[in-house]
């Protein structure tokens, strides 16, 4: 099974966008997306996958060269084009999820502090702000 994952049969081109080496169709009909771990965090990759679990089966596996493979398998008898569309949606979703994570980091611990302060006043909040 693992051997088949690594046999890229052909490259796919979506809407004029060259997704070479990112999205490929495998022999067994599944779609594979390769994501670089230095660009996307595991949390974003998993959150995006979770959001599409109603549409298809999704498997996430580590690959070589600091990459992660995301594999899409039809769940509701989707056609190849429909599965491709889901994979494209995934690309947007993982970008969206990564943006959320990046924005969240900029708050530091402000969210935690305001929730704590709401129910039990904190002494010297200023000293506890970590941004």
């Amino acid at each position, binding site marked *: 099974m693992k051997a088949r994952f690594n046999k890229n049969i052909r490259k796919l081109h979506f809407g004029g966008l060259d997704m070479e080496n990112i999205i490929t169709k495998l022999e067994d009909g599944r779609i594979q997306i390769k994501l670089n771990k230095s660009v996307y965090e595991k949390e974003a990759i998993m*959150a995006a996958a*979770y*959001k*599409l*679990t*109603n549409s298809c089966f999704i498997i996430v596996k580590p690959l070589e060269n600091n990459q992660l493979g995301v594999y899409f398998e039809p769940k509701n008898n989707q056609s190849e084009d429909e599965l491709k569309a889901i994979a494209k949606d995934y690309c947007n979703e993982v970008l*969206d*999820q990564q*943006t*959320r994570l*990046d*924005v*969240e980091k*900029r*708050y530091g611990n*402000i*969210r935690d*502090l*305001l*929730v704590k*302060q*709401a*129910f039990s006043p904190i002494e010297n*909040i*200023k000293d506890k*702000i970590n*941004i």
Partner: protein
Amino acid sequence: MRPYQLLPFRFHDFKNENMLLVNEVGEFLFSSKEEFNNMISYKLDPESETFLDLKSKQILTDTEIEPVIKMLATKYRTKKSFLYNFTTLHMVVPTLRCNSKCKYCQVSSKSEEAFKYDMDKSTAKRTVDLIFLSPSPNIKIEFQGGEPLLSFEIVKYIIEYAEQCNLTKKKQLEFVICTNLTLITEEMLKYLQNHKVYISTSLDGTMALHNNNRPFRNGQGSYDIVTKNIKKVREYLGEDSVSALMTATNDSLEYFTEIVDEYLVQGFSAIFMRSLNPYGSAKRDMYSLGYRVEDFIESYKRAFKHIVNINLNGTFFVECYASLLLGKILTPFSAGFVDLQSPSGVAICGVIYNHDGNVYVSDEARMLANDGDTTFSMGNVNENTYQELFHSDKIVSLLKKSCLECLPICSHCVFQSYCGVDPIRNYAEQGEVVGNRMMSTVCKINMAIFQCLFELIKENDKPTMDVLWSWITRKPIVVGKQVSHESN
């Protein structure tokens, strides 16, 4: 050194290149994608209108952070104020017997002769004693069924004993009877008048729909007697003493506007457009009674537009669910509605005492129990103390799993501040209390209604906004008169 500090907010790719931004306490703002990208890249001009709008909505700040955190914390506390009072709504089932045989009966009611499903006096007394141990200064006792009027002596006993307990407890005490109204007599009405009891009934729409959905056990329709008795209730208890709920079956969907019109004909000024809940007969017969959630949403939107137009034409009429959501979106307050709370309102806001003394975390939990699944039983009034019932590990665990802030997808959802969670519904639909949001019918309905309401807010058509505000304030608009308010 950053020129400003971003504060906690959630965002959503809204529509037509716009972003919706909502901060931790529900204050919101629309921005273009370009402005959004500039904002998160710290490229906003501090003199720009966008910057000042974002600052005023506390989505960013360029001043000292400590006072901003304190202000947001105060607003957060207001939004979560329902947590302070603990359980306010206490539902009591005086009997599971019922003279109706509704197609979708969610409580698995019993025949009129099945007296073993009546609450006995000692259980009723112990129930009231427990209710008054709640720390809440407001207590609402709501009689559910079966049909409570079939066991009116127990209803009277509970009302009178609660009033007696309240002489020393001095809480804000309120009574509601949820009844099909078919058995109400003048004698009962006089009693309810003397004890200031409100009535909540069911009206599924036009005569044909109501008779189809809610027949008597002998198969005859109940529409004529229900509508006649609604008028009688108003004569005795006052115009605003009776409200009604509708439940949408497959047969109802194409008649949503007619259902609204029927409510108007019957003198109601509000309707709650409810989808079918998957319990009891509704679950068993989902194949014939149910529908796709997308079809419900379509019907809801059609009815919603119809209701707005009714208001614009001068008749005050509220869609209750939209009104609850709008209150959460446009005001700093919580809705006081258990299904729109995080953590969930199960047990800590509402609880139900069944005829046999068994206590459940919500009416839906009781519905599951009536079908043999007692997963959400809290204990029994005759066997357990208040502490054992309300402070158990089971309740704490359930609440921990019902915080939107921690649930997958909900934790990042732009509508989180306005939404709620129903772990019992998740369990009923998906077999576990957290559930997968993408498969949740409640989530799909809520998302669609939020989107619809925010589109109207974004459009900001003055007359329509006046209507939406009138639902929140419960003050009818005067057609042609400009109402002064600021929408976000």
